[in-house]
């Protein structure tokens, strides 16, 4: 085992040179690259953290905005619902009022129509009764209706109190006799003869008018005595009215049972 000091010295120098060379070409570049990469990764991680933080904050902000929007939406929905309800109620009330108005109008029209109908019925009825009764009496008893009316009127006068009759002729020189039908001379004479016990020598002035409904009336000083078929017509009218009202109530019941009708 021998030691060559020259070689030892040369190897020491070689080794120191190698240390410098490797430090220059290996360690420094590699360590530098690793440090730079670490720095790069650290900066990327930091940037990622910052982005994550920003994203989290943004997410939080979006969540807040979303909850605000949901609340707003709920408020709007509730408001719309309430308004819809109110409008519906209003429309219903309007419709009810309109229906009530229409019903009222219809009733008024119906009543008017009914009244007109009844009036027409009364007139037509009176005329028809007159004609029918006249024909019946002529056919069966060979007697004129007008004569029978006059007889009936005279009979009624006989039943009246004397005070009322006196009031009729008081302070009068003439009395107005109004009939619905025209009186012939014979009938006028018959009437004069019949009324003679009540009117004395007072003059009878004859008139023809539609006012006494198929009858006769005698007008004096503030007193009027008459007979006509108004009572029969009233009964007929009442019967027709009952019939109409019954029909009307049936129609109303049907319309309530079926609202679309």
């Amino acid at each position: 085992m021998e030691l060559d000091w020259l070689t030892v010295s040369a190897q020491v120098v070689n080794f120191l040179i190698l240390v410098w060379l490797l430090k220059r070409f290996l360690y420094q570049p590699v360590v530098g690259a690793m440090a730079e990469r670490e720095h790069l990764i650290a900066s990327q991680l930091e940037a990622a953290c910052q982005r994550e933080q920003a994203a989290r904050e943004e997410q939080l902000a979006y969540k807040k905005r979303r909850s605000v929007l949901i609340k707003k939406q709920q408020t709007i929905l509730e408001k719309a619902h309430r308004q819809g309800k109110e409008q519906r109620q209003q429309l219903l009330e309007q419709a009810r009022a309109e229906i009530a108005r229409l019903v009222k109008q219809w009733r008024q029209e119906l009543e008017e129509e009914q009244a007109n109908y009844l009036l027409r019925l009364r007139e037509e009825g009176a005329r028809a009764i007159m004609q029918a009764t006249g024909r019946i009496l002529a056919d069966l008893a060979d007697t004129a209706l007008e004569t029978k009316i006059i007889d009936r009127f005279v009979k009624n006068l006989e039943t009246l109190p004397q005070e009322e009759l006196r009031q009729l002729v008081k302070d009068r020189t003439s009395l107005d006799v109004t009939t619905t039908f025209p009186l012939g001379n014979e009938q006028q004479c018959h009437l004069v003869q019949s009324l003679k016990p009540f009117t004395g020598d007072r003059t009878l002035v004859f008139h023809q008018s539609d006012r006494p409904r198929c009858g006769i009336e005698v007008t004096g000083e503030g007193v009027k005595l008459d007979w006509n078929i108004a009572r029969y017509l009233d009964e007929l009218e009442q019967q027709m009215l009952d019939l109409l009202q019954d029909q009307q109530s049936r129609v109303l019941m049907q319309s309530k049972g079926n609202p679309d009708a």
Partner: protein
Amino acid sequence: MTITSDSLLLFTLGHFPVNATIAFTWLVMALLTITSMLITRRLNTDTRISHWQNLLEVLVSSIGKQIGDIAGRGADQYLPFIGTLFIFIITSNLLAIVPGYIPPTASLSTTSALALCVFIAVPLYGIANEGLAAYLRHYIKPTLLMLPFNLIGEFSRVIALAVRLYGNIMSGTMIVGILISLIPFFFPVLLQLLGLITGVIQAYIFAVLAMVYISSANTTHQHFIQKDGDGAPPPV
């Protein structure tokens, strides 16, 4: 049979005789430097790197980690010295597989030179880190009586360091040479493989011991060891 490559004179450079030890050392130096230059020429600092760069980074960071495990904090300053020791020895030893190549580490001159470098590096790093007075106080601890023993210990461990590496590598080369002359086939190949393993282990041992010697003369290292509760150096 040549015991050492120091006596194998290859050529002279002026008045300087260049023997096989020096020549092969230059070869190893050139190989390491050129390889480092080639690989580190295009280092990428991005997250995607080449396989060669990855290999180099693994090598350097592993050496740095080993140094850090022994020295504790401030390990970066030892990386060029200890790393070069390891890389030079392991390359010298592994190239022994190449026919005609004589490892420089099989020369006592080389191992002595390396041990001498460690011998000089220990006080240099100690003084640099702690100052001259603090470093010199290590030799009189725990008492002044220990000064001669400490000095003997300093020298003896340098000699042990040099002879251990020289003995291992030289014996491996010698045994292979003897066996080739006796049993020319198969068996020398196995011993060659064993020599490679021994070479790697010896490189590791030399580097680790050098690091232990340097860090033992360093207060930072002492504090690091005490803090970890492990007073003993790593087993060799």
